[in-house]
């Protein structure tokens, strides 16, 4: 399914606004976990890597596709684990 040019422009625009708004009021204490969290979210590239490897043909395309899925999985899984580890530690005095 290809998305027509204009529709995609609207998606790009709205997603950019959403990303900007979400970050705009973030306390400094969460900057590192948030950088790590957004790093995890672009791990969605794993979906594209799977599709790309899925329709790859011939040795070189298969090899590059394999590397793509490998790298993308590392991004997604690693990003999740480290973000979760960092956020797990944030507690207020009442919770302790």
């Amino acid at each position, binding site marked *: 399914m290809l998305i027509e040019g204009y529709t995609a422009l609207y998606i790009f625009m709205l997603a950019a606004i959403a990303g900007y708004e979400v970050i705009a009021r973030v306390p400094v204490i969460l900057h590192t976990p948030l950088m790590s969290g957004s790093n995890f979210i672009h791990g969605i590239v794993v979906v*594209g890597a799977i599709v790309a490897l899925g329709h790859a043909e011939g040795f070189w395309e298969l090899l590059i596709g394999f590397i793509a899925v490998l790298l993308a999985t590392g991004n997604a899984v690693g990003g999740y684990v480290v973000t979760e580890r960092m956020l797990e530690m944030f507690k207020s005095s009442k919770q302790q």
Partner: protein
Amino acid sequence: MSTNFIVQISYLAAAALFIFGLKGMSSPRTARRGIVWAGIGMLIATLVTFIHPDLLALDGIAINYVLIVLALVIGAAWAWRAGKTVAMTDMPQMVALFNGMGGGAAAAIAAIELLRAQTTIAADPAAGLVIGQVMRIDVAILGILGALIGSVAFTGSLIAWAKLDGRMRRNRVVPAQQLINLALFVATILCGIWVFFTGELLPILLFFALALVLGAFIAIPIGGADMPVVISLFNALTGLAVGFEGYVLGNPAMIIAGTVVGAAGSLLTHLMAKAMNRPLTNVLFSGFGTGPAAAAGATEGEQKEIQAEDAGIMMAYAEQVVIVPGYGMAVAQAQHKIWELVQLLQARGVRVKFAIHPVAGRMPGHMNVLLAEAGVPYDLIFDMDEINPEFPKTTVALVIGANDVVNPSARTDASSPIYGMPILDVDKAENIIVVKRGKGTGFSGLENPLFYHDKTRMLYGDGQEVANQLVQVLKEL
């Protein structure tokens, strides 16, 4: 219900979960929930991709499925282990590494799509088609752009990782580095345009090679202190590359998630650069401290020493103590002892607060993570704007492992490389105790007049040992 419908609806749900998850992560109270939501979104999106129409269209090419599962398992197992075992102090380079992998994946997707188009062209040379015709024009342009950005983020992040991990110590600044980088950038762009107008294999290979070298060259001259900003920039770039490749594959989940990260990451980069008072152009185009060495302003007076016992008693009878931790504290692994000290002080009725400079640690917020790891509740931790008005009401400011972020030269000395950087107004406290390894200058090599101030007492020693001594003093009181 067609499988395509299930796939598309799942992608939509995943995109929504990502945005809500990111929103949740922007407040400490809901942060944990936020990452779990985003994680569920990722899981859904990955699983439904196995029934993606493009994959179902394969008639019995089992090798592709086998490779997909194999790569997923190996990648996940490695990253899970690496993520679980990395020390909190090493978090910045780990994020850089994972980010680089994402950028590499986006570039690899672009490579496959370009190679596929090239194969189609090569199969029928008589038609004389070019990439820009075989792929739709807009798809080809965004695909090539995404390949460029992803490749740069890939090698750039790897260099950042190697530097922060101590695998690449020196900043190798080649003469005319900026000129070389500019030439390389122009060459890469031209090569990208060539790819668009050709059906040959060579320009594609050359284009990727140039883009990968460009990423490394951008990161190599950048100094350690500026690295967080650069990692954040590469993070935003990876997001953008993922969004562009999402367009190439017609995958809305990738477009939305990638663009959200691209925008959020750009803003985060801007906020960090602002906090450090280092405009992004300075970070990218001038190595920190590589300019002519500023004549070190002659500091008057001498450093006055204090013993742990006196320091402990001073704090025990204080009304308010503000602790200013720096990366040095984390390196000495003193945060657990410091938290014990804080609890002892609190038991005596002393008000204790932590003051965090935006760039304390290796990334903004890194110090908060390190304190949180030691069990310090986040409502004791204050950022610069909140705590600065408090210093005049503070009996003792305890500076441990921090240096540049409390250096008053940033306010007064126009010749100082950190001139203009907002600092913590520690010098306005009634008493200042500085815990420091020795008399020398710190990480950046700058003299700090605070250490020579009349109100300042120096407590020499390893951070953890000193904290331990202070705890003993307080226990025996």
